[in-house]
């Protein structure tokens, strides 16, 4: 059953979707109340459209137009396909936490391999705990945004992870989201609490199992990072070509934190990563990098808000988009410097490489500065491959596509090189290489 979403104000069809799904959603009474409140917000706002500034280039009413019914709980066959996908996409040595069609799959996860300093619960069990009066807080919308509200209303599961203060994790924690169901939606929501002084690497992967297609993902991550932590956060979105993936991330960064975030988008007909990072403690160093690899008619949107709320923090953003055929890349980056955030050092650079005349890039960097002793800047470029470089490579024997591939790899390399871990960097390079092979 496909459910069409009505215009602003919601409609009967969406209400039916929520009503039909509500019984399957985990929740104590406080959670049910939070869900209903969130859904009312969604209904009031409707799917985002171009008249909302933050969604100007990604009009979901046009690009998506409907919210699909909730995916069924995966059966044995689906779990078997998911197991194959885990093998294909697992990072070597990582401790895997697997969600299949929006539901945590313990049998596919390495629950027992988690370090003793790491506590894991599923969102489902926390929400269903009737004696936990604060469970509803886990579904707080945290922003007035329709997709986030819908996520809060419909979230089926996710991981609630806490890493104890002072822990140095030797292996990455990889959360793998696997879609097995066609034409269905999954709503996931994870809470990650990284304690003070922790060193950790968190990887999120979004993949399709087998021939899963036409599905929708609405994911939210709420990440809290304690003082003095050193965190690498890698997100790899490699969904089916006709999937929709909307992810919202809320990150609160403590003092003297080193956070290195990297996102790679390849695949999905429509995707948007919207990140809201608040630098809440002094002396932190934030590095946000990303690569969008888009082809056919894919639409990939990266929207980031970095909020310098306190003084003496550094933020660096490096984004690269490679856009082929009739694909469309969007980068919106906003750096906010609050009045007290003196000595802020924020830089943002986004570059788009257009591989066809019909490819489109929209870059919108913004600075909102309310302090006077700061160093902030941004840059945005869009252009084609340099013909003189191409000719040099071809004159050395590289066929056109191979020469292009080498230059594209070099173009995205600046962002990928920010990944410190050799194994993870190689993994990401492998994704980029496979994308290049698909286009040749």
């Amino acid at each position, binding site marked *: 059953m496909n459910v069409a979403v009505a215009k602003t104000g919601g409609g009967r069809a969406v209400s039916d979707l929520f009503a039909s799904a509500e019984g399957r959603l985990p929740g104590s009474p406080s959670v049910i109340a939070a869900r209903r409140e969130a859904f009312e917000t969604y209904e009031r706002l409707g799917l985002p459209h171009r008249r909302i500034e933050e969604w100007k280039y990604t009009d979901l009413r046009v690009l998506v137009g409907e919210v699909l019914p909730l995916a069924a709980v995966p059966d044995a066959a689906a779990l078997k396909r998911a197991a194959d996908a885990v093998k294909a996409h697992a990072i070597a040595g990582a401790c895997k936490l697997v969600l299949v069609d929006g539901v945590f799959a313990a049998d596919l996860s390495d629950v027992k391999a988690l370090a003793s300093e790491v506590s894991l619960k599923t969102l489902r069990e926390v929400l269903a705990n009737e004696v936990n009066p604060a469970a509803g807080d886990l579904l707080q919308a945290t922003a007035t945004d329709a997709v986030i509200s819908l996520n809060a209303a419909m979230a089926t599961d996710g991981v609630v992870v806490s890493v104890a203060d002072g822990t140095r994790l030797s292996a990455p924690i990889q959360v793998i989201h696997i879609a097995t169901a066609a034409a269905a939606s999954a709503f996931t929501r994870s809470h990650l609490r990284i304690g003070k002084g922790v060193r950790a690497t968190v990887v999120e992967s979004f993949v399709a199992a087998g021939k899963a297609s036409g599905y929708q993902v609405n994911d939210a991550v709420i990440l809290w990072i304690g003082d003095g932590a050193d965190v690498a956060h890698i997100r790899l979105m490699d969904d089916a070509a006709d999937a929709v993936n909307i992810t919202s991330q809320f990150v609160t960064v403590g003092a003297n934190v080193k956070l290195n975030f990297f996102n790679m988008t390849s695949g999905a007909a429509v995707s948007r990563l919207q990140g809201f990072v608040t630098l809440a403690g002094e002396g932190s160093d934030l590095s946000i990098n990303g690569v969008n690899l888009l082809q056919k008619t894919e639409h990939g949107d990266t929207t980031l808000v970095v909020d310098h709320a306190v003084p003496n923090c550094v933020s660096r953003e490096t984004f690269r988009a490679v856009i082929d055929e009739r694909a469309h890349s969007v980068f919106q980056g906003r750096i906010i410097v609050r009045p007290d955030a003196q000595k802020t050092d924020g830089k943002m650079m986004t570059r788009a490489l257009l591989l066809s005349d019909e490819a489109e890039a929209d870059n919108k960097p913004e600075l909102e500065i309310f302090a006077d002793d700061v160093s902030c800047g941004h840059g945005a470029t869009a252009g084609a491959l340099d013909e003189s*470089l191409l000719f040099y490579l*071809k*004159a*050395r024997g590289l066929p056109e596509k*191979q020469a292009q591939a080498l230059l594209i790899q*070099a173009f995205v*390399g600046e962002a990928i090189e920010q990944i410190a871990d050799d194994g993870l960097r190689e993994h990401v390079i492998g994704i980029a290489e496979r994308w290049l092979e698909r286009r040749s």
Partner: protein
Amino acid sequence: MPLLEVRNLHVRVEEREILHGLDLIVNEGEVHAIMGPNGSGKSTLSHVIAGKPGYEVTDGQILFRGEDLLEMDPDERAAKGVFLAFQYPVEIPGVTTMNFLRTALNAQRKARGESELMVPDFLRKVREVSKSLNIPQDMLKRGVNVGFSGGEKKRNEVLQMALFEPSLCILDEMDSGLDIDALRIAADGVNALRSPGRAMVVITHYQRLLNYIVPDVVHVMSKGRVVKSGGKELALELEASGYAQFEDAA
């Protein structure tokens, strides 16, 4: 059969004709120098032989071992053994010299139906060649030509020549931007590559380079044609009397 035969070549760039019926024959093992004033069409000739886009061949032929080069893409020409050493080699940030060399060499081998060179064999070969050209190993780990001095860029071109082992090397004004020491090093590298099976076409303004790379034949180009050919002494004559006498001949 000549290695390279250019017949009645006419070339336009946009609306302007640069080459007006150029003829040239280069045999295996020969070193030819092409000299001429600015704007005479020397670089255009080298670019057209290598297949650079933007040039319209309106008449004539370029035959390489009897095959029509103009029918081939630049990479096919390279795989056949045509090498253009650029006057101003481009910088390619993000592509390490080592990766570039291996990718290019294997692309050429693949095009010729040869097996790709495995990493250990390739590394051994690069080490040997770079050592003979005094190219430090750390230069090979940097982006292609990124941060290289003029001399380093030219040595990198010579390194590629040595690795790819082309049959025809066209050196487009390799003396530009080089001091005398860098010039000598680059020229020594070129001389080491002279062989009976390989021909070279050295394009230059100045006789100076020909003190180091001694040609068998010297051609004078003016206004898009070869207007005089002779032995190496022709270069000395040009040095003494300049190009003015040939402007009228064109």
